[in-house]
């Protein structure tokens, strides 16, 4: 009975019961008071008595309403509707608080999801806390292992139950339509036994297949490539697909196909270094004991293999720690920043609530007068809080997801597992709960304050809040300064000369597998240059190992003839065809281009750094055995998007060293889209194992290479904007409540002849004072604590922007306060 009607009421089709009750109550009170007055009471006393006798009608109504679920839902729906109506009447408050909450929750959810992944979430391996990385070192710096040494660790260190690892390889899958590029993982040792990763379908490798068995696994990612039991042809060999494993099997790395490393490689030279081994600790063995044993084995290996294992030492690092090493510090910093941000957003939210509470004071006073109990007022406030948090949660999902994707782009290269980071549902729920609790807390405070009809905040409260705003603005100023500095650095890097001019040039990346023999590689290079050059519309074809801005390929030591000492470390070695410089617009400053294998050109940076500025005619060597004559000096090009200056580099002739990843540059008037098909067809005819990894203009490649620094800049800019928004909302809230608090004072001043402009100035003076204190604090902190990092100019720009933002935020309420008609202002209390 009555359910339909109640539902109707709660959905808003019925007449507003609450409003009706209020009106009826008011009528009743009036009548009662009149009657009491007729009996001889004073008007004031009559009203007081009427209220007393009336009792707490609303509270009683609510008590009656709480009797069944429908009534409870009815009440909830009604409260939410009332709350929404109230919120809509204060758009500034609504937008401000939803934004604050969304930023606070979203950023923290993203940051904590990353922290969670790095520090707390177990790796997707069986008892992953018992896995250690066997990190080989030589003279204190990390070095890589090879299958033979890995076998030694596994057989001789008794603290290990298993040792294994994998390495990634880009290769091709032969399909009927042509070659398809795939990323493979080649396992060395029993990777699946070691990690406990199980097959989702079919099986993993059997122990007899671990050494180069003709079997393959697909990851979920590569599932579309074939079916279990299919035969696939990868990089020239045939494998039988035996199962499917999870994408997580390689901790975030994007792998399509998994195969055991070929047996030949397992018995390759002990000198090679391309592996990092992972071991499982035997139960009951401590990390320290295992480390001591591994070190003694390392010492034995040094004695047994003095040629290859000279200076060998070993360190055991818990796997999770090792894999997340690079990301640990940034992650903590990110989380600390995010937590600080949450704190600031909550403080500002409190400010907004206070200002609004004061604006709504009059309305609440009426409700209290009508007999609305505290409980009722609280319920309305709670409904508002719930509504705000609900809206903000939706928005914060967007913020959080954007944050995670940005983090992935910026740090994904150093820490591929970042790809596994998803907004954690529980983290998210916890944060939303914090937001709800805080909002409810503020609501409670406001509700309690409103319960006491005229509890205006005093001067002391204003001071306390002003201190908070000042601290916040000082911090905001530092953040802004940092952001300005980073943006400026980015712009400086981006604006730096590239060192080449490659308009109208199309590049085609062609990959051959790492095990392609040198003669075949040379044949492919030559055939590629010849056959692509014969395509219609191609004026010239040249080759480089990697395009500018895309990073270096090989680097190493360099020696200069006539000097005993090594001239430098980490010097870039490039291979190009001689025509490459002309095609790319790289100037030849002196000498000529190389024509023979023992001739090289160096760039100006190399010449200045190692050859006293006079390069031509000198002899350089990577190892003091093979000497190369410098025949020319060319201009430097930028190697990476985030590096301002070119590195010192040396160019050898293409084909004089082994590097099977080629970038062809083609001078053409044809659009790359039309060229792509022809280039692919050409290469399908040249080689069984080559893949064309994409055809694009050089400008497009540059754009791609700049993606990471650009995301970095966007991230910083976003932080700066958030900081600015925080300062603005904080300032707005405190000034709004200050102006409201002083409405009466304003009215008096207006009544005795003050101009509105002078009143605005009165408020602005307060704001200005706060801003100046904030800037002073920020400058002191900036100069002494962060002085080495933030430069003066960005710091001053940050200070200026903060000042401007604070004054502008104060303008709105100050102006509004000055416009109140004097009479209304005087009536305010």
């Amino acid at each position, binding site marked *: *009975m009555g359910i339909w*009607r*109640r539902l109707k009421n709660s959905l808003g089709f019925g007449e507003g019961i609450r409003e009706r009750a209020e009106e009826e109550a008011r*009528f009743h009170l*009036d009548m009662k008071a009149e009657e009491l007055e007729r009996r001889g009471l004073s008007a004031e006393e009559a009203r007081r008595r009427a209220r007393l006798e*009336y009792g707490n009608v609303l509270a*009683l109504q609510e008590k009656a309403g709480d009797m069944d679920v429908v009534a409870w839902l009815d009440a909830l729906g009604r409260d939410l509707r009332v709350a929404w109506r109230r919120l809509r009447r204060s758009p500034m408050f609504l937008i401000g608080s939803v934004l604050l909450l969304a930023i606070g929750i979203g950023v923290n959810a993203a940051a904590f999801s990353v922290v969670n992944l790095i520090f707390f979430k177990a790796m997707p391996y069986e008892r992953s806390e018992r896995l250690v990385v066997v990190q080989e070192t030589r003279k204190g710096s990390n070095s890589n292992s090879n299958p033979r040494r890995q076998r030694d660790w596994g057989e001789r260190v008794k603290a290990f139950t298993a040792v294994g690892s994998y390495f990634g390889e880009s290769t091709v899958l032969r399909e009927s339509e042509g070659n398809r590029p795939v990323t493979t993982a080649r396992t060395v040792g029993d990777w699946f036994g070691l990690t406990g990763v199980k097959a989702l379908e079919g099986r993993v490798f059997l122990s007899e297949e671990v050494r180069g068995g003709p079997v393959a696994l697909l990851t979920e990612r590569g599932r579309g490539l074939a079916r279990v039991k299919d035969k696939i042809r990868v990089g020239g060999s045939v494998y039988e697909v035996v199962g499917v494993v999870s994408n997580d099997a390689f901790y975030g790395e994007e792998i399509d196909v998994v195969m055991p490393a070929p047996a030949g490689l397992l018995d390759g030279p002990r000198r090679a270094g391309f592996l990092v081994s992972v071991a499982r600790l035997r139960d009951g063995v401590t990390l320290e004991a295992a480390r001591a044993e591994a070190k003694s084995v390392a010492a034995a290996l040094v004695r047994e293999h003095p040629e290859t294992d000279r200076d060998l030492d070993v360190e055991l690092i818990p796997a999770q720690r090792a894999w997340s090493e690079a990301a640990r510090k940034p992650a903590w910093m990110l989380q600390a920043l995010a937590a600080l941000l949450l704190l600031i957003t909550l403080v500002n939210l409190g400010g907004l609530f206070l200002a609004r509470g004061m604006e709504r004071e009059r309305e609440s006073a009426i409700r209290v007068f009508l007999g609305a109990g505290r409980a009722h007022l609280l319920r309305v406030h709670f409904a508002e809080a719930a509504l705000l948090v609900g809206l903000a949660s939706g928005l914060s999902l967007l913020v959080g997801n954007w944050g995670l994707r940005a983090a992935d782009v910026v740090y994904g290269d150093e820490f591929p597992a970042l790809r596994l980071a998803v907004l954690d549902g529980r983290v998210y729920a916890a944060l939303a709960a914090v937001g709800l609790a805080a909002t409810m807390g503020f609501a409670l405070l406001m509700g309690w304050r409103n319960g006491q009809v005229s509890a205006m905040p005093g001067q002391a409260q204003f001071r306390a809040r002003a201190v908070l705003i000042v601290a916040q603005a000082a911090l905001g100023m530092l953040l802004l300064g940092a952001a300005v500095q980073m943006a400026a650095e980015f712009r400086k890097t981006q604006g730096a000369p590239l060192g080449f001019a490659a308009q109208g040039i199309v590049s085609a990346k062609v990959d051959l597998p790492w095990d392609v023999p040198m003669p075949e590689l040379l044949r492919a290079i030559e055939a590629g240059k010849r056959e692509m050059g014969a395509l219609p519309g191609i004026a010239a074809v040249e080759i480089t190992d990697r395009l500018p801005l895309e990073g270096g390929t090989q680097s190493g030591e360099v020696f200069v003839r006539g000097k005993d000492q090594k001239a430098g470390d980490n010097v870039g070695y490039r291979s190009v065809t001689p025509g490459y410089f002309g095609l790319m617009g790289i100037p030849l400053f002196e000498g000529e281009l190389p024509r023979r294998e023992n001739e090289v050109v160096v760039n100006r940076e190399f010449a200045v750094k190692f050859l006293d500025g006079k390069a031509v005619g000198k002899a350089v060597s990577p190892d003091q055995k093979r000497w190369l004559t410098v025949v020319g000096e060319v201009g430097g090009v930028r190697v990476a998007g985030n590096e301002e200056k070119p590195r010192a580099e040396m160019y050898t002739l293409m084909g004089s060293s082994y590097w099977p990843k080629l970038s062809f540059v083609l001078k053409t008037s044809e659009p790359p889209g039309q060229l792509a098909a022809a280039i692919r067809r050409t290469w399908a005819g040249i080689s069984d194992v080559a893949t064309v990894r994409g055809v694009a203009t050089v400008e497009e490649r540059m754009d791609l290479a700049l993606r990471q620094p650009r995301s970095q800049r966007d991230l910083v800019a976003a932080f700066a904007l958030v900081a600015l928004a925080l300062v603005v909302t904080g300032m707005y809230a405190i000034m709004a409540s200050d102006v409201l608090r002083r409405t009466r004072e304003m009215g008096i001043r207006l009544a005795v002849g003050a101009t509105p402009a002078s009143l605005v100035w009165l408020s602005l003076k307060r704001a200005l004072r706060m801003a100046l204190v904030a800037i002073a604090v920020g400058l002191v902190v900036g100069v002494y604590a962060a002085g080495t990092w933030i430069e003066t100019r960005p710091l001053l720009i940050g200070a200026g922007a903060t000042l401007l933002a604070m004054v502008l935020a104060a303008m709105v309420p100050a102006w509004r306060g000055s416009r109140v008609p004097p009479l209304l202002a005087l009536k305010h209390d």
Partner: protein
Amino acid sequence: MKNDALSGNLNLLVLKTLALGPMHGYGIAARIQQLSSDALRVEEGSLYPALHRMEQEGWIQSDWGLTETNRKARFYTLSKQGKKQLELELDSWRRIARGVEMVLAAR
């Protein structure tokens, strides 16, 4: 009479009062008090919830109207269903009253 005892019969009293003609809430309370020679005082806090409940049951209807002093007030009228309910409640009241009387008259 204390309110506790009254509350069980509030529906009856209100319906009976409204049978005399449409009335606003304040008038209902005043009328009950007057007719009972101040013996029964309806607490406002229970009157309005009762009125709303009865309206939801369909026994009474309400609408905005003007009082003699030209003030806006909510007037309640007895519906057809309400008349039936009044008779039901009167019957049950009389039965109970008779019963109570008989118990009290026993020696």
